Protein backbone atom coordinates (compact mmCIF):
# COMPACT_ATOMS: atom_id res chain seq x y z
CA UNK A 1 0.00 0.00 0.00
CA UNK A 2 1.45 3.30 -1.07
CA UNK A 3 0.62 6.57 0.47
CA UNK A 4 0.99 9.40 -1.96
CA UNK A 5 0.90 13.13 -1.42
CA UNK A 6 -2.73 13.40 -2.48
CA UNK A 7 -4.03 10.98 0.09
CA UNK A 8 -1.90 12.60 2.74
CA UNK A 9 -3.32 15.99 1.88
CA UNK A 10 -6.84 14.62 1.89
CA UNK A 11 -6.25 13.11 5.31
CA UNK A 12 -4.90 16.38 6.61
CA UNK A 13 -7.93 18.24 5.32
CA UNK A 14 -10.27 15.74 6.94
CA UNK A 15 -8.42 15.93 10.23
CA UNK A 16 -8.47 19.71 10.19
CA UNK A 17 -12.18 19.75 9.37
CA UNK A 18 -12.93 17.38 12.22
CA UNK A 19 -10.83 19.44 14.59
CA UNK A 20 -12.43 22.71 13.61
CA UNK A 21 -15.86 21.13 13.71
CA UNK A 22 -15.19 19.97 17.24
CA UNK A 23 -14.10 23.43 18.27
CA UNK A 24 -17.11 25.04 16.65
CA UNK A 25 -19.47 22.67 18.44
CA UNK A 26 -18.83 24.46 21.74
CA UNK A 27 -21.79 26.58 22.71
CA UNK A 28 -19.58 29.31 24.13
CA UNK A 29 -18.08 32.20 22.23
CA UNK A 30 -14.40 32.93 22.31
CA UNK A 31 -13.21 34.00 25.76
CA UNK A 32 -11.73 37.24 24.49
CA UNK A 33 -14.99 38.07 22.77
CA UNK A 34 -16.89 37.46 26.00
CA UNK A 35 -14.56 39.60 28.05
CA UNK A 36 -14.71 42.41 25.52
CA UNK A 37 -18.49 42.21 25.43
CA UNK A 38 -18.79 42.37 29.22
CA UNK A 39 -16.25 45.15 29.42
CA UNK A 40 -18.18 47.17 26.85
CA UNK A 41 -21.42 46.60 28.78
CA UNK A 42 -19.81 47.74 32.01
CA UNK A 43 -18.33 50.87 30.48
CA UNK A 44 -21.42 51.74 28.50
CA UNK A 45 -23.69 51.47 31.52
CA UNK A 46 -21.11 52.78 33.96
CA UNK A 47 -21.82 49.67 36.00
CA UNK A 48 -20.12 49.14 39.30
CA UNK A 49 -20.57 47.39 42.60
CA UNK A 50 -21.52 49.03 45.84
CA UNK A 51 -19.27 47.12 48.18
CA UNK A 52 -20.77 45.69 51.30
CA UNK A 53 -24.02 47.49 50.77
CA UNK A 54 -25.17 44.68 48.50
CA UNK A 55 -24.53 42.13 51.18
CA UNK A 56 -26.65 44.08 53.63
CA UNK A 57 -29.53 44.23 51.24
CA UNK A 58 -29.79 40.57 50.50
CA UNK A 59 -33.20 39.39 49.69
CA UNK A 60 -34.35 36.70 52.04
CA UNK A 61 -37.17 35.15 50.13
CA UNK A 62 -39.64 32.96 51.94
CA UNK A 63 -37.15 30.18 52.43
CA UNK A 64 -39.55 27.57 53.70
CA UNK A 65 -41.47 27.62 50.42
CA UNK A 66 -38.46 27.28 48.19
CA UNK A 67 -38.35 23.97 46.31
CA UNK A 68 -34.62 23.77 46.90
CA UNK A 69 -35.04 23.43 50.64
CA UNK A 70 -37.20 20.56 51.84
CA UNK A 71 -39.63 21.26 54.63
CA UNK A 72 -38.21 20.56 58.04
CA UNK A 73 -39.16 17.24 59.54
CA UNK A 74 -41.58 17.48 62.47
CA UNK A 75 -39.97 17.11 65.88
CA UNK A 76 -40.10 13.60 67.30
CA UNK A 77 -42.85 12.99 69.82
Amino acid sequence: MRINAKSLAAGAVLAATAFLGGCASSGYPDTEERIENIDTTIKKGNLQGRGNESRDQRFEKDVSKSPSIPAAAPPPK
Partner: protein
Amino acid sequence: MKKLFGKNLIPLLFPVIVWGCTALQRAAHGDFTGAAVEGGKAVVGTGIRMIEKYCEDTDQVNISQEYYVGRGSAANVFSKYKRVHDPALERYVRKVGETVGRAAKSSGAVGLDGAALQEPYKGYFFAVIEDRHVNAFSAPGGFVFITTAALRAMKTEDELACVLAHEIGHVMDRHGIRYVLEQQKFSIPFEAVGEEVAARSPELVGKYAKQFTGMCGELATKAAGGLGTEYELKADELGAKFAANAGYDPQGLIEFIKRTRHGEDLK
Protein backbone atom coordinates in the same frame (compact mmCIF):
# COMPACT_ATOMS: atom_id res chain seq x y z
CA MET B 1 -39.02 17.25 6.69
CA LYS B 2 -37.43 18.26 9.95
CA LYS B 3 -40.12 20.84 10.53
CA LEU B 4 -42.86 18.42 9.61
CA PHE B 5 -41.44 15.88 11.97
CA GLY B 6 -41.36 18.36 14.80
CA LYS B 7 -44.88 19.57 14.16
CA ASN B 8 -46.36 16.13 14.19
CA LEU B 9 -44.38 14.60 16.93
CA ILE B 10 -44.50 17.16 19.61
CA PRO B 11 -48.18 17.65 20.08
CA LEU B 12 -48.12 14.07 21.14
CA LEU B 13 -45.35 14.89 23.53
CA PHE B 14 -47.14 17.68 25.29
CA PRO B 15 -48.88 15.61 27.93
CA VAL B 16 -45.47 14.23 28.72
CA ILE B 17 -44.35 17.69 29.67
CA VAL B 18 -46.65 17.44 32.64
CA TRP B 19 -44.67 14.42 33.60
CA GLY B 20 -41.64 16.52 34.29
CA CYS B 21 -43.36 17.97 37.33
CA THR B 22 -43.75 14.79 39.26
CA ALA B 23 -40.80 13.11 37.69
CA LEU B 24 -38.44 15.83 38.86
CA GLN B 25 -39.51 15.42 42.43
CA ARG B 26 -39.06 11.70 42.18
CA ALA B 27 -35.81 11.86 40.26
CA ALA B 28 -34.37 14.33 42.73
CA HIS B 29 -34.86 11.68 45.34
CA GLY B 30 -33.30 9.03 43.18
CA ASP B 31 -36.59 7.35 42.28
CA PHE B 32 -36.13 7.11 38.54
CA THR B 33 -38.36 4.09 38.17
CA GLY B 34 -41.15 6.03 39.80
CA ALA B 35 -40.38 8.97 37.56
CA ALA B 36 -40.77 6.77 34.52
CA VAL B 37 -44.10 5.48 35.78
CA GLU B 38 -45.34 9.02 36.29
CA GLY B 39 -44.15 9.79 32.81
CA GLY B 40 -46.11 6.85 31.55
CA LYS B 41 -49.29 7.98 33.23
CA ALA B 42 -49.03 11.30 31.50
CA VAL B 43 -48.15 9.85 28.14
CA VAL B 44 -51.23 7.69 27.91
CA GLY B 45 -53.25 10.76 27.06
CA THR B 46 -51.35 11.35 23.88
CA GLY B 47 -53.45 9.05 21.79
CA ILE B 48 -56.75 10.63 22.73
CA ARG B 49 -56.16 14.31 22.63
CA MET B 50 -54.69 15.91 19.57
CA ILE B 51 -54.06 19.54 20.15
CA GLU B 52 -54.18 21.59 17.01
CA LYS B 53 -52.53 24.84 17.82
CA TYR B 54 -48.80 24.92 18.35
CA CYS B 55 -46.26 27.50 19.24
CA GLU B 56 -43.63 28.80 16.89
CA ASP B 57 -42.17 31.63 18.91
CA THR B 58 -41.74 32.43 22.55
CA ASP B 59 -44.70 34.81 22.65
CA GLN B 60 -46.93 31.80 22.26
CA VAL B 61 -45.35 29.77 25.02
CA ASN B 62 -46.70 30.70 28.39
CA ILE B 63 -44.52 30.67 31.45
CA SER B 64 -46.31 27.70 32.91
CA GLN B 65 -45.53 25.55 29.87
CA GLU B 66 -41.97 26.79 29.90
CA TYR B 67 -41.70 25.83 33.53
CA TYR B 68 -42.73 22.24 32.84
CA VAL B 69 -40.19 21.93 30.05
CA GLY B 70 -37.58 23.22 32.48
CA ARG B 71 -38.58 20.68 35.07
CA GLY B 72 -38.18 17.89 32.59
CA SER B 73 -34.71 19.13 31.75
CA ALA B 74 -33.88 19.57 35.41
CA ALA B 75 -34.89 15.98 36.05
CA ASN B 76 -32.42 15.01 33.37
CA VAL B 77 -29.70 17.05 35.06
CA PHE B 78 -30.34 15.26 38.33
CA SER B 79 -30.07 11.94 36.57
CA LYS B 80 -26.54 12.87 35.48
CA TYR B 81 -25.21 14.88 38.37
CA LYS B 82 -25.23 14.24 42.06
CA ARG B 83 -26.87 17.05 43.95
CA VAL B 84 -24.96 18.34 46.94
CA HIS B 85 -27.24 18.18 49.93
CA ASP B 86 -25.74 20.90 52.01
CA PRO B 87 -28.55 23.13 53.32
CA ALA B 88 -26.18 25.89 54.43
CA LEU B 89 -24.42 26.00 51.07
CA GLU B 90 -27.66 25.88 49.11
CA ARG B 91 -29.14 28.58 51.29
CA TYR B 92 -26.14 30.79 50.66
CA VAL B 93 -26.21 30.24 46.90
CA ARG B 94 -29.93 30.87 46.84
CA LYS B 95 -29.62 34.00 48.90
CA VAL B 96 -27.14 35.50 46.48
CA GLY B 97 -29.16 34.24 43.51
CA GLU B 98 -32.44 35.63 44.79
CA THR B 99 -30.76 38.95 45.45
CA VAL B 100 -29.61 39.14 41.86
CA GLY B 101 -32.95 37.85 40.61
CA ARG B 102 -34.81 40.59 42.43
CA ALA B 103 -32.40 43.21 41.14
CA ALA B 104 -32.88 41.91 37.60
CA LYS B 105 -36.50 43.02 37.66
CA SER B 106 -35.58 46.62 38.25
CA SER B 107 -32.47 46.69 36.07
CA GLY B 108 -34.27 48.11 33.05
CA ALA B 109 -32.48 45.62 30.83
CA VAL B 110 -34.16 44.14 27.78
CA GLY B 111 -33.69 40.83 26.07
CA LEU B 112 -32.75 39.84 22.55
CA ASP B 113 -34.56 41.86 19.90
CA GLY B 114 -35.81 44.19 22.62
CA ALA B 115 -37.95 41.49 24.18
CA ALA B 116 -39.25 42.13 27.68
CA LEU B 117 -37.60 40.01 30.32
CA GLN B 118 -39.80 37.53 32.07
CA GLU B 119 -39.71 36.26 35.60
CA PRO B 120 -39.98 32.52 36.08
CA TYR B 121 -43.34 30.98 36.82
CA LYS B 122 -42.53 29.72 40.28
CA GLY B 123 -39.42 31.63 41.15
CA TYR B 124 -35.92 30.28 41.03
CA PHE B 125 -34.57 26.90 41.96
CA PHE B 126 -30.87 26.89 42.76
CA ALA B 127 -28.96 23.64 43.16
CA VAL B 128 -25.31 22.82 43.73
CA ILE B 129 -24.17 19.75 41.80
CA GLU B 130 -21.08 17.67 42.27
CA ASP B 131 -18.73 17.96 39.31
CA ARG B 132 -15.04 18.50 38.76
CA HIS B 133 -15.65 20.82 35.83
CA VAL B 134 -16.15 24.51 36.38
CA ASN B 135 -19.65 25.13 35.10
CA ALA B 136 -23.01 26.68 35.76
CA PHE B 137 -26.08 26.38 33.61
CA SER B 138 -29.83 26.79 33.66
CA ALA B 139 -33.00 25.28 32.31
CA PRO B 140 -36.16 27.13 31.24
CA GLY B 141 -38.44 28.22 34.00
CA GLY B 142 -35.85 29.24 36.58
CA PHE B 143 -33.74 26.15 37.28
CA VAL B 144 -30.13 27.14 37.95
CA PHE B 145 -27.27 24.72 38.58
CA ILE B 146 -23.73 25.41 39.68
CA THR B 147 -20.96 22.88 40.10
CA THR B 148 -18.82 22.39 43.17
CA ALA B 149 -15.72 23.06 41.05
CA ALA B 150 -17.12 26.44 40.03
CA LEU B 151 -17.78 27.36 43.65
CA ARG B 152 -14.26 26.32 44.62
CA ALA B 153 -12.81 28.44 41.82
CA MET B 154 -14.52 31.58 43.04
CA LYS B 155 -12.61 34.12 45.06
CA THR B 156 -15.36 36.57 45.92
CA GLU B 157 -19.11 36.73 46.38
CA ASP B 158 -19.18 39.15 43.45
CA GLU B 159 -18.05 36.33 41.20
CA LEU B 160 -20.78 34.03 42.47
CA ALA B 161 -23.36 36.76 42.00
CA CYS B 162 -22.17 37.42 38.46
CA VAL B 163 -22.24 33.77 37.45
CA LEU B 164 -25.74 33.33 38.87
CA ALA B 165 -26.77 36.59 37.20
CA HIS B 166 -25.54 35.20 33.87
CA GLU B 167 -27.79 32.17 34.35
CA ILE B 168 -30.69 34.35 35.43
CA GLY B 169 -30.14 36.26 32.20
CA HIS B 170 -30.66 33.01 30.25
CA VAL B 171 -33.82 32.33 32.23
CA MET B 172 -35.38 35.78 32.01
CA ASP B 173 -34.63 36.16 28.32
CA ARG B 174 -35.94 32.63 27.78
CA HIS B 175 -32.92 31.36 25.91
CA GLY B 176 -33.67 27.70 26.61
CA ILE B 177 -37.13 27.81 25.14
CA ARG B 178 -35.91 29.96 22.26
CA TYR B 179 -33.31 27.31 21.48
CA VAL B 180 -35.88 24.54 21.60
CA LEU B 181 -38.28 26.35 19.29
CA GLU B 182 -35.46 27.18 16.88
CA GLN B 183 -34.50 23.56 16.65
CA GLN B 184 -38.06 22.57 15.81
CA LYS B 185 -37.71 19.71 18.21
CA PHE B 186 -41.14 20.29 19.56
CA SER B 187 -43.97 22.77 19.75
CA ILE B 188 -45.96 23.59 22.80
CA PRO B 189 -49.72 23.72 22.42
CA PHE B 190 -51.95 26.19 24.17
CA GLU B 191 -54.09 23.65 25.89
CA ALA B 192 -53.95 23.56 29.65
CA VAL B 193 -51.27 21.58 31.33
CA GLY B 194 -52.24 18.66 33.49
CA GLU B 195 -55.47 17.62 31.83
CA GLU B 196 -57.20 14.47 32.84
CA VAL B 197 -55.83 11.46 31.08
CA ALA B 198 -58.60 9.15 29.93
CA ALA B 199 -57.07 6.34 27.97
CA ARG B 200 -54.12 4.10 28.60
CA SER B 201 -51.70 2.70 26.09
CA PRO B 202 -48.54 1.06 27.36
CA GLU B 203 -47.05 1.11 23.86
CA LEU B 204 -47.31 4.85 23.66
CA VAL B 205 -45.91 5.18 27.15
CA GLY B 206 -42.61 3.66 26.21
CA LYS B 207 -42.43 5.31 22.83
CA TYR B 208 -43.05 8.90 23.79
CA ALA B 209 -41.52 8.83 27.22
CA LYS B 210 -38.27 7.90 25.53
CA GLN B 211 -38.57 10.73 23.03
CA PHE B 212 -39.44 13.22 25.73
CA THR B 213 -36.48 12.06 27.76
CA GLY B 214 -34.28 12.46 24.72
CA MET B 215 -35.52 15.96 24.08
CA CYS B 216 -35.02 17.03 27.69
CA GLY B 217 -31.63 15.39 27.70
CA GLU B 218 -30.59 17.30 24.63
CA LEU B 219 -31.72 20.57 26.12
CA ALA B 220 -29.93 19.87 29.39
CA THR B 221 -26.75 18.86 27.57
CA LYS B 222 -26.91 21.89 25.34
CA ALA B 223 -27.41 24.19 28.32
CA ALA B 224 -24.45 22.64 30.14
CA GLY B 225 -22.22 23.09 27.09
CA GLY B 226 -23.38 26.59 26.19
CA LEU B 227 -26.50 27.54 24.28
CA GLY B 228 -24.66 29.34 21.50
CA THR B 229 -22.71 32.53 20.93
CA GLU B 230 -25.68 34.88 20.67
CA TYR B 231 -27.31 33.61 23.85
CA GLU B 232 -24.11 33.44 25.85
CA LEU B 233 -23.06 36.98 24.97
CA LYS B 234 -26.54 38.26 25.81
CA ALA B 235 -26.50 36.42 29.13
CA ASP B 236 -23.11 37.98 29.90
CA GLU B 237 -24.52 41.42 29.17
CA LEU B 238 -27.63 40.83 31.27
CA GLY B 239 -25.60 39.21 34.02
CA ALA B 240 -23.33 42.24 34.34
CA LYS B 241 -26.35 44.54 34.54
CA PHE B 242 -28.24 42.40 37.04
CA ALA B 243 -25.23 41.94 39.30
CA ALA B 244 -24.42 45.66 39.29
CA ASN B 245 -28.03 46.53 40.03
CA ALA B 246 -27.85 44.25 43.05
CA GLY B 247 -24.73 46.05 44.23
CA TYR B 248 -22.23 43.43 43.15
CA ASP B 249 -19.18 44.27 41.11
CA PRO B 250 -19.79 43.19 37.48
CA GLN B 251 -16.02 42.91 37.02
CA GLY B 252 -16.44 39.69 38.97
CA LEU B 253 -17.72 38.03 35.81
CA ILE B 254 -14.60 39.00 33.88
CA GLU B 255 -12.35 37.90 36.71
CA PHE B 256 -14.03 34.52 36.92
CA ILE B 257 -13.94 33.92 33.17
CA LYS B 258 -10.27 34.88 33.04
CA ARG B 259 -9.38 32.57 35.89
CA THR B 260 -11.22 29.60 34.46
CA ARG B 261 -10.66 30.30 30.78
CA HIS B 262 -8.59 27.22 30.19
CA GLY B 263 -11.26 25.04 31.69
CA GLU B 264 -8.94 23.43 34.21
CA ASP B 265 -10.50 20.84 36.39
CA LEU B 266 -10.23 22.32 39.82
CA LYS B 267 -10.12 19.76 42.53
